[in-house]
């Protein structure tokens, strides 16, 4: 199924640049018709495709440091490509791995809500719809027709704005082009970020910014030792942030550990 022109879309998030403003979340909510409730105080109930977490170094003033960590779906390759944790457990084939783009799908009409995928996902990227979405006033008229709204009882997650890929491909077909330009397909969160902390593109394409960034000495991935092979990379210059990215023991130093994890190309 995989052809040689296959893309491997991924994201690099520079945590040194992220201010925690939440623009990426707002952009994502409006782009992808993500439902919300009047009262969102219980964050365990919240549905979001990208979520900004706040982490600290657990030190007292004046040594306290804070880092904001935006987490979309990591679009894991798995130990071998296509073996994402969620895809391998879904009994309904409601989520699958697209070998052409490397993006993990979620088909709401196919999902029956068993939530195995949520249990399998180590990143809390997947959210369950406990209620039917209710849009305030006439906000329903502002929903995007390119993303189908979800009903009660199904799981949803970040799609790397796959509909934007589809629309960009439509234009490319009309202009008889095979390849998309880097700026033709960008996710809503990457475009919304005011500090340019989020970079999006094809990890296999030398001409895309992410290609270079992912090889930066500042780059790391979350829970890398689980072998999930995520396509979301983070950049940080702070060692405590990097250490928070996996379950390291007190004496372990992340940069010195040879992870023995191969990346697919």
């Amino acid at each position, binding site marked *: *199924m995989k052809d040689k022109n296959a893309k491997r879309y991924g994201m690099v998030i520079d945590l040194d640049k992220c201010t925690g403003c939440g623009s990426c979340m707002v952009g994502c909510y409006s782009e992808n018709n993500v439902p919300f409730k009047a009262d969102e105080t219980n964050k365990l109930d919240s549905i979001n495709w990208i979520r900004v977490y706040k982490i600290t170094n657990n030190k007292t003033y004046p040594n306290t440091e804070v880092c904001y960590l935006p987490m979309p779906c990591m679009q894991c390759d798995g130990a071998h490509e296509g073996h994402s944790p969620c895809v391998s457990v879904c009994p309904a*084939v*409601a*989520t*699958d*791995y*697209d*070998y*052409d*783009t490397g*993006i993990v*799908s979620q*088909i*709401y*009409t*196919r999902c029956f809500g068993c939530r195995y995928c949520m249990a399998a996902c180590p990143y809390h990227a997947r959210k369950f719809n406990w209620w039917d979405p209710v849009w305030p006033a006439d906000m329903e008229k502002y929903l995007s027709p*390119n*993303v*189908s709204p979800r009903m009660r009882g199904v799981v949803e997650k970040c*799609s790397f704005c*796959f*509909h934007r890929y*589809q*629309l960009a*491909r*439509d*234009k*490319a*077909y*009309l*202009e*008889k082009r095979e390849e998309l330009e880097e700026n033709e397909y960008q996710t809503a969160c990457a475009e919304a970020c005011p500090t340019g902390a989020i970079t999006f593109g094809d990890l296999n394409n030398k001409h895309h910014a992410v290609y270079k960034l992912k090889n930066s000495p500042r780059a790391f991935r979350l829970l890398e030792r689980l072998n999930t092979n995520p396509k979301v990379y983070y950049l940080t210059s702070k060692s405590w942030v990097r250490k928070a990215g996996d379950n390291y023991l007190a004496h372990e130093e992340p940069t010195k550990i040879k992870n023995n994890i191969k990346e697919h190309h």
Partner: protein
Amino acid sequence: MSTDQNQTVSTEAATDPVNHEPETNDSPPSKSSGWAVFLFFMIGFVGSILSGWILFPELLYSKKDQPIDFNHAVHLDVVSDDCESCHYFRDDGSFAGMPDLSSCIDCHEEAQTDDPEEIKFVDEYVTPDIEVPWLNHSKQPDCVFFSHSAHVIGADMSCESCHGDIGTSEHTRVYEENRLTGYSRDIWGYSISRLGKPEAGEPKPMKMNDCAKCHKEETGHKGACFQCHK
């Protein structure tokens, strides 16, 4: 205690000759009953097949006429760019689908013929500037993404290969809507059993399996879910 009572009852029944009386009253089986059973079975069997194949589709689909009896053949003769003259691609690669009034108004600001359908179109829609509520035979569910440019431009397919020979039709077809799902009958296909193939010039069924089958034949695999779902 209860076992004792049951034993007493059964002994009484066994010794009582009156209780055996009804069994001897059974009439002997008639000679023709085998044929009668077969006949009634066949009536029921054929009846259920007929009701499933003829009555059920009649009940399942409601029938509606298009607001205007549109003549494709007349239009195809006068336009320069075949189907794409009205059903065109926008610059961003999306497909316009059914034309809106602004496409029609260039020619039909006033009725050009005595055709009652054209006069109706001008009087009821063009003059008061109301969009025609066309009924779309090919409308897919909201969760489906279909790219016309990928098929028509990318794969060089003709319109007829899915929509049938609609360009030469002189009258609109009756729109049949599934009362349960609300979708057009074209999606399921006209054969209720989905056996056999539609004849040349007829629209093809457009269920997911139909897409997957063609994708498998043409590209070697059915494709990932996101290719057609959103």
